[in-house]
């Protein structure tokens, strides 16, 4: 009996409790999103609702299928070519293809529209080459659903590319030789051996893409598409129709849980694969020559051009022909504000993700594990919905708890403050930090902890002297990934920010929303440039690992 009690006390130590609290804090807005929809107030006819509902669901499905198809083709295609072949520029493409992470989907959407619209940039180019004519009808139009699919795909395919590439990287030559011995053609061994063995990585990449696609607001609302996300926004925020919002979030939840199951499933497989390390033989790189080298180069260059150069050139073009917007921009202040948010949030996120992971590791509690998994779902909830849920929760808490205690209101501390902004980022990007640290931790064997305790190290000392140095690279990488996400983040910043506080993202949005895409070009360029620097810093980690 005494032993059990002792074990119980041991289990509920400070690490356990702080880990529990962190997960709970992250879970609160998520719970608010779904619980607030169980009140029923509704003012729309059911016929109208059904029209909405089907539109939202089918548009989300179309979007998802389109984006998954494109990101799969581009991401796996590029990863395969740069991993198995050598050709002119291959070392450049290995990291250059990651630069697409610097371009958020909404900025891609601005570029796409500006280039292909009637009398847009494409028209100007044709006119300057071939003279005056009406080219508008022969220029393809990439707007609506197609525009959204393209914009989102090119800004997200990097997930599939990076994960698939690292999986190819560790693929053993033995497998490929097995195919050869069985008399497989190149095509057959690609489809029967190489692709299936990278499946867990591909699925993990695609499920990240899927979650980001479902939660996209910027590109989708720019093209005026009605998806589940814009639907929840409209139903909840515009019409106060909680019943419809409830139904829509229910469908969104189904999507998300489906993805979670898929992702977890593939993760388990990935662990299984990495175990079979015996007899690893690094694979032979095939050197391409002649037209084959040219084809490989062209494919990679096309992807690099479309995903990164194209939006950058369009923005650069505008900045050059409308220099006034560039000169008027208070870029230093915007940079400081952006970097402030980035550094503040990434430190907070990594710090707490660490504690939570360590707590999980010490306690090995199923309850805690489940709560952590649930709190990670914040990633799949659209930022704008999360931000409004946070505001709603703070307001409810203030009115029902704080006011009863008779203390001052806490609203100004959390709403319209840097602290509040960072807190919502925290909920949104917690999964990124948490999963990142977790995967780093999985590589540290439990026996290391035990020998540390045997050496008389306390839990805290084990944490600071063993784990942190061990995970230095993971921390660095995750810090940069979070930074890139926050530089690009728009809807949360827009609604949570203090007075007179702008970032590159909000400035670009504000110009774009008054139909001045030319003026949005300069802040967009700065945004892409800042994010690119972060990417370049980490590219050697991403490419290698």
């Amino acid at each position, binding site marked *: 009996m005494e032993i059990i009690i002792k074990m119980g006390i041991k289990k509920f130590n400070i690490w356990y409790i702080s880990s529990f609290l962190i997960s709970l804090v992250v879970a609160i807005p998520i719970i608010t999103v779904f619980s607030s929809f169980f009140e029923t107030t509704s003012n*729309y*006819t059911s016929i*109208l609702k059904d*029209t*909405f509902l089907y539109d939202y669901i089918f548009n989300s499905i179309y979007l998802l299928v389109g984006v998954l198809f494109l990101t799969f083709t581009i991401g796996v295609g590029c990863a395969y070519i740069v991993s198995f072949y050598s050709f002119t520029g291959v070392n450049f493409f290995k990291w250059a293809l990651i630069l697409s992470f610097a371009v958020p989907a909404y900025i891609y959407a601005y570029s796409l529209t500006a280039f292909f*619209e*009637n*009398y*847009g940039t494409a*028209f*100007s180019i044709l*006119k300057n080459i071939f003279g005056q004519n*009406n080219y*508008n*009808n022969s220029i393809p139009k990439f*707007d*609506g659903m197609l525009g959204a699919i393209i914009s989102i795909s090119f800004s997200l395919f990097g997930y599939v590319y990076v994960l698939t590439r690292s999986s190819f990287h560790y693929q053993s030559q033995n497998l490929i030789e097995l195919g050869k011995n069985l008399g497989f053609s190149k095509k057959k061994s690609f489809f029967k051996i190489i692709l299936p063995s990278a499946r867990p990585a591909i699925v993990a990449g695609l499920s990240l893409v899927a979650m980001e696609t479902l939660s996209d607001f910027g590109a989708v609302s720019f*093209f*005026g598409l*009605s998806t589940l996300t814009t639907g929840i*926004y409209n139903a909840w*925020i515009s019409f106060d129709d909680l019943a419809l919002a409830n139904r829509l979030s229910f469908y969104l939840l189904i999507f998300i849980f489906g993805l979670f199951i898929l992702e977890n499933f593939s993760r388990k497989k990935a662990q299984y694969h990495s175990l079979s390390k015996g007899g690893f033989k690094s694979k032979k790189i095939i050197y391409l020559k002649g037209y084959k080298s040219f084809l490989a180069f062209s494919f990679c260059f096309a992807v690099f051009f479309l995903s990164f150069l194209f939006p950058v050139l369009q923005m650069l073009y505008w900045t050059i*022909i*409308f220099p006034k917007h560039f000169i*008027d921009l208070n870029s230093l*202040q915007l940079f*400081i504000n952006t*970097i*402030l948010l980035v*550094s*503040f949030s990434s*430190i907070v996120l990594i710090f707490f993700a660490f504690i939570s992971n360590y707590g999980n590791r010490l306690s090995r509690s199923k309850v805690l594990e489940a709560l952590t998994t649930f709190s990670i779902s914040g990633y799949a909830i659209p930022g704008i919905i999360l*931000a*409004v849920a946070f*505001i*709603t929760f*703070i*307001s409810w808490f*203030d*009115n029902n708890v704080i006011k009863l205690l008779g203390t001052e209101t806490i*609203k*100004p501390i959390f*709403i*319209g403050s*840097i602290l509040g902004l960072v807190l919502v980022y925290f909920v949104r990007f917690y999964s990124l930090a948490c999963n990142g640290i977790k995967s780093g931790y999985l590589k540290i064997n439990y026996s290391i902890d035990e020998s540390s305790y045997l050496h008389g190290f306390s839990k805290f000392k084990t944490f600071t002297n063993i784990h942190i140095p061990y995970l230095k690279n993971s921390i660095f990488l995750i810090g940069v990934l979070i930074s890139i996400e926050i530089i690009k983040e728009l*809807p949360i910043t*827009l*609604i949570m*920010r*203090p*007075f*007179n*506080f702008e970032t590159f993202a909000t400035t670009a949005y*504000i*110009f774009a*929303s*008054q*139909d001045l895409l*030319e*003026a949005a070009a300069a802040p967009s360029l700065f945004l892409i440039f800042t994010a690119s620097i972060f990417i370049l810093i980490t590219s050697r980690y991403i490419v290698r690992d």
Partner: protein
Amino acid sequence: MKKISLIIAVLITLSSGSYTNGHSKEVNIFSARHYDSDIQLYEKFTAKTGIKVNVISGKDKALQKRIIEEGKDSKADLYITADAGRLGAFQAKGMFQKGASSKAIKAVVPSNFRTAYWTGIAKRARIIYYSPERISLSDLKGMTYENLADAKWKGKIVIRKSNNVYNQSLVASLIKNNGKKATAKWAKSLVANMARDSKGNDRAQILAVAAGEADLAVANTYYLALMLSGKKGPEQQAAAKKVKPFFPNQNDRGTHMNISGGGILKHAPNKANAIKLLEFLLTKEAQVHIVNNTFEYPMIDGVEPHELVAKMGLGFKQDLKTKVSSYEKKQADALEVMLAAGWK
């Protein structure tokens, strides 16, 4: 770690210069109307009165939600947005207080464009654009919004999506004048006349007519002037010249008007300053600044619109019969009618 915290401390100090520090000589604006030129205007106001103007701009409904949730503790004084229906909807939620119609404001803003709770700051008209190459002015004689449903325009009209608030207000005004049933029929015929599924913003509709995709477009007035000004580049300037504006319903109630405007929030901590700012926005100086930057029509008499807007036509009859404050009540019906008609 020490280095990092030092950097953060420095950054916070650097950026905190721009926050509100709670001093009484200030006014806080939540704005869903984001013109850069508005910021210049606020700077002028500060120079004149010493009252500091703090702004948060963002998406209309999300800002409203934040104000509602902040409740009594909200620092927001003034809410500014485009579209009378949006202002009306926020008023219906009880979020404004009386005060937007001070004596000075009543004296200059016509009663159609204000209520006790909010006032218009600038006007815009939602009009028809046509291609003079393919449509002669005589074809358009006596043309009304109602006529857009005529079979002779089959496959010739472009207009943006039904989720657009300017369309919702236009259709709301039709429901107000012709009833829901007639407007439902009208919407069905209009959808049948569309040259393509609705997409793009107002400027894209005008460009579609210039490019020959359609013969008629429905869009707000300031978009054409924006293109004609060359601010969108020489290509669009040339394209805009291929399109002519037409002001519908001149023989009956007049052309559909809308506003951008603002109201004083229920829990405004700086109400007096907010009224001062609204009054300032309606002075001649501010109105000249607005019309020359946004190409809207002035709200007060005695100010000329921008030259390019004036060239589009000045003496047209505005619909003063349908009060802009009535849009809000019919916007939900308008959306229903449009969706039922298959208006994307």
